């Protein structure tokens, strides 16, 4: 599967800001997305959209070409519509199940971003939403690969979107997901405390089986959901053996490390399987942590492959290694 177009909305004005001194910091312990003016969305429609729908649609529309429309829309979003759900819930409680307005309910369905995109772009093709928390975007990628295997002449819009909604933030705070202390994203990897810094954003891609003029190729993907570090290591080892027979091939490892001491052992275990000179990058200080942050991770990978430039603050290890541009 080849990636042809990319676009994102993130907490940074320039998603890959070169100078760490210029990166946006959390406000009230949250890394909030810098939203554009959404000139592609009619103002009347925009007003009625919740934030994740707005970000999703606003990221997708610049990529959708009327002359060469995509054949389907594949979205990963763990919590799309959740904020609207709770708004509708508040109506139910406040008005004691009385006469309620259905707007929040209609926007509360998890498939609302893909549905809106189908509607706005008049796309009658494949349309699906994967909602499996931290693997929502990965399942969307797997889906796109399978759709393209079946229909090699097609192209698809592929994306990952999640927002920090007030209610989801509250529930995740109760779950102990976030850092208790007030901390700058510039120091997140040195925090040595449990919890992450919540972030949000949207990243979208146009993918096809056509390698001409592609930005990048997704060669292989594998997912695993477990709390066993050894199992992760074992599966990654098998994955590398299968897909990276020439072990020198990997120049960059983009780690999802997020400053949470509870998940650090998983990322460290992965690093032990790489060549000692493989460059290791981190990006969560830019976008914060959210279920589909891997989508923006893929955006960073594409951007780096395209520009062959990496801002210094992304390096964790082996900054000096000569890079060949094969990721």
């Amino acid at each position, binding site marked *: 599967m080849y990636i042809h177009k990319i676009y994102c909305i993130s907490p940074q004005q320039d998603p890959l800001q070169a100078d760490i001194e210029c990166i946006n910091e959390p406000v009230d312990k949250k890394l909030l997305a810098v939203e554009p003016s959404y000139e592609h969305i009619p103002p009347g429609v925009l007003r009625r959209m919740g934030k994740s729908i707005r970000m999703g649609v606003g990221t997708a529309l610049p990529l959708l070409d009327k002359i060469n429309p995509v054949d389907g*829309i594949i979205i990963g979003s*763990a*919590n799309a519509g*959740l904020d609207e*759900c*709770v708004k*509708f*819930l*508040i*109506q*139910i*409680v406040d008005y*004691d*199940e009385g006469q*309620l307005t*259905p707007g929040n*309910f*209609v926007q*509360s*369905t*998890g*498939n*609302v971003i*893909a*549905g*809106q995109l*189908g*509607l706005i*772009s*008049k*796309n*009658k093709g*494949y*349309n*699906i*939403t*994967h*909602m*499996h*928390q931290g*693997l*929502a975007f990965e*399942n969307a990628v*797997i*889906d796109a*690969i*399978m759709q393209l*295997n079946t229909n090699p002449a097609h192209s698809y819009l592929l994306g990952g979107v999640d927002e920090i909604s007030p*209610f*989801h933030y*509250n*529930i995740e*705070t*109760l*779950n102990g997901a976030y850092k208790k202390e007030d901390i700058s994203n510039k120091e997140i990897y040195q925090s040595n405390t449990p919890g992450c810094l919540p972030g949000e954003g949207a990243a979208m891609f146009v993918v096809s089986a056509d390698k001409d003029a592609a930005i990048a190729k997704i060669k292989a993907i594998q*997912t*695993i*959901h*477990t709390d066993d570090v050894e199992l992760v290591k074992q*599966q990654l080892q098998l994955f590398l053996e299968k897909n990276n027979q020439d072990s020198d091939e990997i120049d960059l490892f983009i780690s999802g490390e997020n400053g949470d001491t509870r998940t650090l052992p998983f990322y460290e275990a992965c690093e032990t399987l790489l060549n000692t000179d493989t460059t290791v990058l981190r990006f969560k200080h830019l976008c914060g942590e959210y279920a589909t942050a891997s989508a923006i991770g893929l955006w960073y990978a594409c951007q780096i492959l395209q520009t062959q430039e990496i801002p210094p603050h992304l390096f964790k290890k082996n900054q000096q290694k000569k890079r060949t541009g094969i990721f």
Partner: protein
Amino acid sequence: MSKIFITGIGVISAIGNSVAENHEALKAGVCGIKKELDLFPSKYKGLMPFGQVPISNESLQNKLQVKEPGVTRTSMLALHAFNEAVRCSGITADDISSPETALIGANTVGGMCLTDELYHDANTSEAGSEYTHSYDCASVNLFLQKHNKMQGVINTINTACSSSANAIMYGAMLMQHGFAKRAIVGGTDSLAKFTINGFNALHILSSDLCTPFDESRKGLNLGEGAAFLVLEKEEDLNGKKVYAELTGYCNANDAYHPSSLSDEGDGPYLAMQGALKIADLTADKIDFINAHGTATENNDEVESRAMVRLFGTPPVFASTKGNIGHTLGAAGAIEAVYSILSLLNQEVYPSLHFKNAISSTGLIPVLEYKQMPVNHVMSNSFGFGGNCSSLIFSKA
């Protein structure tokens, strides 16, 4: 491409706790929809009929030996159907926990059946309830995964009321594209104050029993339930019993309105047409259509029109929404099980509460239980966001 077979089925609904009980009820034309609602306090209790599964949460906990806190009704209904499906297929605990076994589940309410708890947890800064990990849709499948020590590809799909049809399709595709050797796929949803009030605000809930495809239909009844299917590849069967083959599937979008279908029914038409293409069948080979047939004014008219557009004279068709109500994210999977029962037993079940045909199409669903040759069944599921899916099951 490998052929995909169904080797196990499990279902729980308002008309039965097992495949056998559902089968008997379908044959007898039993309606499980009643003006009863015991799960939570609601203004609509006694006023509107619901397809409630007649088992309390406590009984489900005991029956399923669920001891940990924070497990929702949505998850327990799912586990109930999951257990029956794997028992039925005979796959071992080792098979289930193999990294090559995928778990693909769908639902739309997740833990939102706990409306009041969610309201509390979304707004409190003090102690949360035991359910703070259980609200989102994925929590159901994470529970099933943990309960069964599963390691393969896991996913949660939400395309509103067509969710579990897409879960079945995604599971089959994972197997055909080398991401899984077998897949356990299905869907679940439980009744919730949230959905009752949502559909009511849209004025598409009927205060009487729903009447699919009837001229004077007044809307849908909400139901609840779950169904799971075990999918295995032809080359892995080794002579084991199979229930049906999944031969066709397609997902298309109506791209017309967030909560209703277009007059032309492009989404339903494209989904049905696409499924025929994958199955490599002509329309005349479909013996029976398990229609989406929610009994809303919009759905039944558009679905009828799309069937006429594709089939000319549509084959025998029926909706089971009159038996169990609309089970939302579970509907595609429950109706997959019902479609498979038609194939297995060479019979079709009566569509309930119908009186007069919709005047613009004149289509009449099957009204009596009857035995007939059934080789290919099409099952439709359409949802908010224009999400339309059709599956085709064939006699194995």
